[in-house]
């Protein structure tokens, strides 16, 4: 069985164009990347996760512990997809040819040194090295590695995800893989705040007025901001831990449960920039903004 985590990406891109005006410019690139991801997945199917012990899973979640499913990923498969995304970037902007060449070489070197399966942490270290060596800016590095790693996680863990009892989970981190969320949505049927794991795609309902990162429930320290004319996206923040995450209003999306929030996240990076300028940092640890872009608007 082949699982395409971003199967209906074209419809989602169309929806994002309607909702967020400034996204249009990026559409050719986004379309190309998602087409490449789907193509790669179809050509290189991976083994999906075996079902988890239902009772053990239930007990673990009920204890408030995430299952922390972090499968080792096949190095050659990940680097292969990384290269494909690099080609899509190169085709969109030929001036990035050299950067993508170095990215490709770094991938090859990584593969030579780590030919077997590697964990998420090692790939994230590669990302940090590429940023450190000035091959990729932080935003590009976050984009490439999050999209590639999440493609594998979503394929691998989807069968587990579908039967996961998220209704008993009250934590702020992902019940399945333990990552911290970067975005979520307000379910249109009842307004419940559903957080989504950027990595494995698991969604779970979280308390409406509570910080998922530090657990703060003090109303005076919690809130959100939105931008006039772009109310579909809200940036929720906590003044205690000074972290933020983005929530999309499901009542304006009209597609409960089937949205590809990853694309909505890409279409609203402006909100990330505004959040950084307002002094908040991403609670997910995913930095979508380059240091050079963060200018204090009060200066």
């Amino acid at each position, binding site marked *: 069985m082949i699982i395409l985590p971003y199967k209906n990406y074209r419809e989602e891109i169309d929806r994002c164009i309607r909702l967020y005006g400034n996204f249009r410019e990026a559409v050719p*690139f986004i379309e190309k990347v998602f087409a490449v991801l789907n193509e790669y997945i179809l050509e290189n199917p991976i083994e999906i996760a075996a079902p988890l012990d239902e009772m053990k899973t239930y007990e673990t979640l009920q204890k408030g512990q995430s299952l922390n499913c972090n499968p080792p990923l096949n190095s050659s498969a990940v680097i292969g997809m990384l290269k494909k995304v690099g080609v899509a970037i190169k085709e969109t902007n030929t001036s990035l040819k050299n950067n993508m060449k170095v990215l490709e070489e770094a991938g090859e070197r990584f593969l030579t040194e780590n030919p077997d399966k590697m964990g998420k942490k090692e790939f994230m270290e590669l990302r940090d090295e590429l940023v450190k060596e*000035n091959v990729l800016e932080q935003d590009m590095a976050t984009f490439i590695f999050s999209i590639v790693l999440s493609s594998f996680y979503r394929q691998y863990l989807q069968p587990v995800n579908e039967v996961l009892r998220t209704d008993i989970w009250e934590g702020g981190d992902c019940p399945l893989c333990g990552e911290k969320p970067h975005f979520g949505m307000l379910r249109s049927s009842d*307004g419940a705040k559903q957080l989504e794991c950027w990595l494995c795609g698991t969604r779970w309902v979280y308390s409406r007025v509570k910080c998922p990162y530090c657990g703060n429930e003090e*109303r005076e320290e919690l809130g959100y901001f939105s931008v006039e004319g772009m109310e579909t996206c809200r940036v929720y923040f906590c003044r205690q831990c000074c972290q933020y995450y983005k929530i999309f209003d499901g009542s304006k999306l009209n597609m409960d449960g089937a949205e590809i929030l990853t694309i909505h996240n890409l279409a609203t990076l402006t909100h990330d920039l505004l959040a950084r300028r307002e002094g908040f940092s991403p609670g997910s640890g995913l930095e979508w903004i380059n240091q050079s872009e963060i200018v204090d608007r009060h200066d």
Partner: protein
Amino acid sequence: MQLTRRSFLKLTGATAAAATLAGVGLNKASASTIDPLRIKYTKEYTTICTFCGVGCGVVCHVRDGVIVNAEGDPDHPINEGTLCSKGSSHYNISYVYDEKGKPKPNPNRLTHVLYRAPGSSSYETKNWDWALDTIARRIKDTRDQNYVESVNVNGRQVTVNRTEAISWLGSAFCTDEENYLFHKMARAMGVINIDHCARL
């Protein structure tokens, strides 16, 4: 396998500038054109609907100290995010719409104490200190003047410690916790005529 912090890259100056998302059309620079005033900060407060005794949870959105929206609280076990037509109109306690459909402060909303003296046909404005002192004084006087310590039941004096001159009507506009305290207070004063307006 544990990796050490080694460099995967042996760069030879191949990259003049790092690749950014702006280079592929994902330009965040448009944010700089957003006037800071266009950013609206809002807080969410949870509360209980004041219309009936069901006690549905409500999330009120407050901007600059003013309510801008109210919706059902999805985390509340009673209503799970839903609200009836009355509950949905919480916003209109504070605001009504003018002829052009723009919100304006509700002119019928009481924002201070109004008092109509016995025999008077008009209301006068009072402050809260006066109102609370007057209510307390009248309750105390009525209770003291009509307090019954014991009654004769079949020729036997039975202690009752009550007043029948006061009755207490609870309110669905109050929370369960408030009504619990009111009930305790009424009992402590010897009030035995206690009722509630909610009929569900």
